[in-house]
Each structure stands twice: as structure tokens, then as C-alpha cells.
């Protein structure tokens, strides 16, 4: 998406920037991701791999952002005397809390590796792996 091409030809012109400033046509969410001109080179032999790497790097960035935000919160809490960072390092959860946390990690890992798990399932259970077109035809007879 971009209204860049249309808009780029419009020129304010003249020193008189007297026209009202109106940015309401700017769709910041989509335009932030405008593609730059020129074909995109792919470095990996498979463009799909490169696509996945790009998504992974963007997520890595967001994890770093969350990490920095938590760090800010910890430091503010320390400054305001609510807790010390050493409290965090020394923290030992109760058995119950520890189990809840382990459960969270287990679910998290499963979410991330869902596709691998499902690919293995497909190999293990070919009977559940019939192409959808075939199922459609079969259902038509059911």
C-alpha cells in the first residue's frame, strides 16, 4: 500500500507554506511499511526462508523492546523503594508459583513450535493427511 506515488508529485511550491497543514491522509500504520523503489534482492536461495528470517528479526526486536521496558519498570520501582533489583535476582518462587511459571513456559514453547509439531503429526498419521480436494469429493458422497 502507498499513496506515496500519488502524493509524491504534489509539491508545496513557493515559500508560501500558507496552505493549512493537513496530515489526515497519512495512514501511518500502513505507510510505515512502504516498500522502497527498486527490486528487493534475496540473499538466501529460498525467498521463503528469507521472509521467515525477517519476521523472526522483527519479533526479536519486539522482545528487546519488552525487555527494556521491564528493565525501566524495575529501576523505577527500585528508585521509589518498592523493590531492589537484588530482590529479583534472589527471588525463589513458591512451589505453586514455580509450577504455574513452568506451565507458562511449556505452553509458550508449544505455541512457538506448533508448525513443527503438526508436520510430525502429518508424517505419523497419514490417514489424517488427505488432501482437502479429495476430502471435498469424498464428503460429496457422504
Amino acid at each position, binding site marked *: 500500500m*502507498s*499513496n*506515496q506515488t500519488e*502524493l*509524491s508529485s*504534489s*509539491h*508545496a*511550491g*513557493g*515559500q508560501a*507554506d500558507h*496552505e*493549512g*497543514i*493537513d*496530515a*489526515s*491522509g*497519512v495512514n*501511518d*500504520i500502513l*505507510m*510505515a*511499511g*512502504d*516498500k*522502497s*523503489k*527498486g527490486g*528487493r*534482492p*534475496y*540473499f*538466501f*536461495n529460498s525467498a521463503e526462508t*528469507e521472509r521467515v*528470517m*525477517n519476521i523472526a*528479526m*522483527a519479533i*526479536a*526486536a519486539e522482545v*528487546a*523492546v519488552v525487555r*527494556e*521496558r521491564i528493565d*525501566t519498570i524495575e529501576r523505577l520501582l527500585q528508585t521509589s523503594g518498592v523493590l531492589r533489583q537484588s530482590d529479583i535476582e534472589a527471588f525463589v518462587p513458591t512451589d505453586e508459583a514455580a509450577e504455574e511459571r513452568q506451565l507458562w513456559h511449556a505452553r509458550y514453547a508449544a505455541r512457538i513450535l506448533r508448525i513443527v509439531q503438526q508436520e510430525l503429526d502429518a508424517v505419523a498419521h497419514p490417514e489424517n493427511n488427505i488432501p482437502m480436494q479429495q476430502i471435498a469429493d469424498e464428503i460429496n458422497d457422504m
Partner: protein
Amino acid sequence: MMSYQLPPVWTKLQRHEVFPEFSHDERARYNFLANLNRFVSTAIAPGNKIAFDKRVEPAFRAVHGRSFADRHEVAAAMSNEPIYQCWGALRRSTMEMRQQNGRAVVLRQAQQLAEKVKARLAGAANLVLAKDFVVPPYLRHVDNHLMPGSYHTEYFAGDVANAANYDSGLFVTSGGMLGSLTDGGGKAIAAWVKASYPDFKPRRILDIGCGLGHNTLPIAQLYPDAEVIAIDAGAPMLRYGAARAQALGIGNVTFMQTDAADMQAFANGHFDWVQTTMFLHETGGRAIHKIFKEINRVLAVGGLNLHIEQPQYTPDMSFYEQFMRDWDAYYNAEPYWGHMHDLQPVDLMQEAGVDPADFMQVGVKAVNDLDQKKADGQVTEDYGRSPIWNVFGGWKKG
């Protein structure tokens, strides 16, 4: 850990009155990217040379019975090398992320930025935009360094979003090595001229392709009695640059929308110093000669003409290094970079009226107020990104 050099945090950037607002997370995103860039350039990029020496070159030699004949052969062979593929994919990815992250920041506040700039420029006389300005075709043809919309696109009348993105994000690409106002190049050249030619008292200075004036202002500051004209093709850059100069209290620079290849606005011999900084490699194969012709025309006899650029490709530069330096040309959308660096500066200067006997060329390092120790210390070669440049030029002969 001790020997690993961290890039300065993004908040070290000096924020002026028209600078965009950054949220906590937007700042953190840039801190991540600066570190990612640093890691990719210090830990991953050196793998290219290792793979080249150990695998790519021997394999080529085995097939062809000779080594590489030019940088294009190196490029073709390297494109199949997995280490290079991974580095290239990562480097491209960081450039794209930097653009998207920066655009997200400035576009959400595009209205406020334009209003701030307009308010700062009320009553000021340091901005001259042209009516019906024709953006040079080579600028319209590509978005240099993957910057969507390039320098000239206005998303609405009075827009400065792309300039604000450039101002606030260059820090990330350069790893903070250009200083808190991203003006390390301008500071270096101004200091070098002052020290080398203490008697030089320029009355009128022209900075061509000034962008938003990062590197113009240090020159204007060191020569406060000079009248400085800064020209560019991009209205958003000029608008933002003029407001930024006002905000930083620098009064002797006028920002003008003028095509460097056609500077009718200036009389013959009008300037005693014509400067370009990181500009020539973003022009075009025909335009560059028109520009030098125009420089020759507007420069006074005995005047100084200087250009800050990346190093040219010389016969003693290895094909591997030429290939690495060429990377930005194709993969960071700086397409003229490769061709331009095949030209000989001494020939270009002759077009600007400088006698080959008077041609000069020096290396200068960015003046970085953030951490002089780091700037002076060992800098990992990150082809095309290091804060060390080639300055060439000369004095126009009588």
C-alpha cells in the same frame, strides 16, 4: 565484554525543538537496532572474508585456473556462499527495519511535526523553496538507502516526515559514530580547513546537497562571518533543516531549493568555497558532470572546492574490498555508488577548474562528541559505514 564496544544509547542524540517525539518503546527499538547493527558488523561480517579466502576464492580458482578478474566476478561467486547470504540477508533486514521503525514514529506525528516546523519558521528568512521545482530524474528513480519516498516526497503540504525520519534515525545506521547532532563529517571538514588554511576567510560558502544541514551547520558555525547557502532538491529536508538551524541558533545559513546541475540562481564566481558531503554518490552518471561544470561556474577563481566521499576504487584496492564496498550500491539502494567510484576524482576536479597538479586528497575521521575515545580507537571496517571518509578537492586555478 570489556573489549566489545557498545554503541551509544539513542537518547544521547541531541534533541532540538523540531525533533520528533519518541516513546519509551520507540527509543528501545532503536537501541536494539544499533546493537544488532554493531553485532552484525563486528561478529558476522568478518565471516565474509574468511569464507572468501577459505572457500570462495579456492573454488573459483579450481574451476577457472585463475583468480578473480574484477569485483563483479567476486559478487557472482559470493552470492552462493552461505555465510555471505546470511550476512547480506541480516544487513538488508536491519536497514528495512530501521526505515519502518523510523517511519512509524514520524508518520504518527506528521501533523505536529509540520506544525512545529511552520511555527519555528514564522518570520524567519532562511528558507527559499522553488515554485514548480523539478526533482532530478535519478532521485525519482530510486529511494536511496531504502528510504521510502526519498528526500523529496511530501505526503501533504508542509510535510517534513521523511526529513525527521532521516534526522532521528541516521544515528542507528551509523552506530552513533557521527556525534550527538549527526554532524561529525561537517565538524571534521570545518576543523580541517581551518587548521590547514588559517588565512582562508570565505565570504560566501555553498553546500550542495545539504540534506537537512547536518554537516552544513558546523561549517557555518566555524565561519560565522560567512554567508552560507545550502541547496537541496528535497523540500521536506530544506524546511526541516531551516527550522532546525533556527532552533539551534545558527543564523548564517539559507536553505534553498535548487538543482545542483542548474544553479541559475547564482552568478558566476559567486562563492569562495563550494562543498559537498556524501552527495556525489547519490547523483547520476550525466548529472555529475553537469554539476561539476556548474561548480566551476559559480566558484570564484582561487576558491576552494571540497567533496567528502567514500574511498574511490583504485587499482591497489582488492576486488574483494571493491565488492564489499559495492554492496550498498545494489543492496542498500545506492545504485550510483558503484559507478561513481570508478570515476577518478582528479578528472572530476579538472571539470571544476582545478589543475591536476593542485589536486588534493586526504582522509578525515568524524569528530564525535559522544565518545572521542571510541571514535579515535580501532574502528571495525564496515564497508561504506565507517566514520572515516575520503576528502578530495582543490583550489580553482586563476
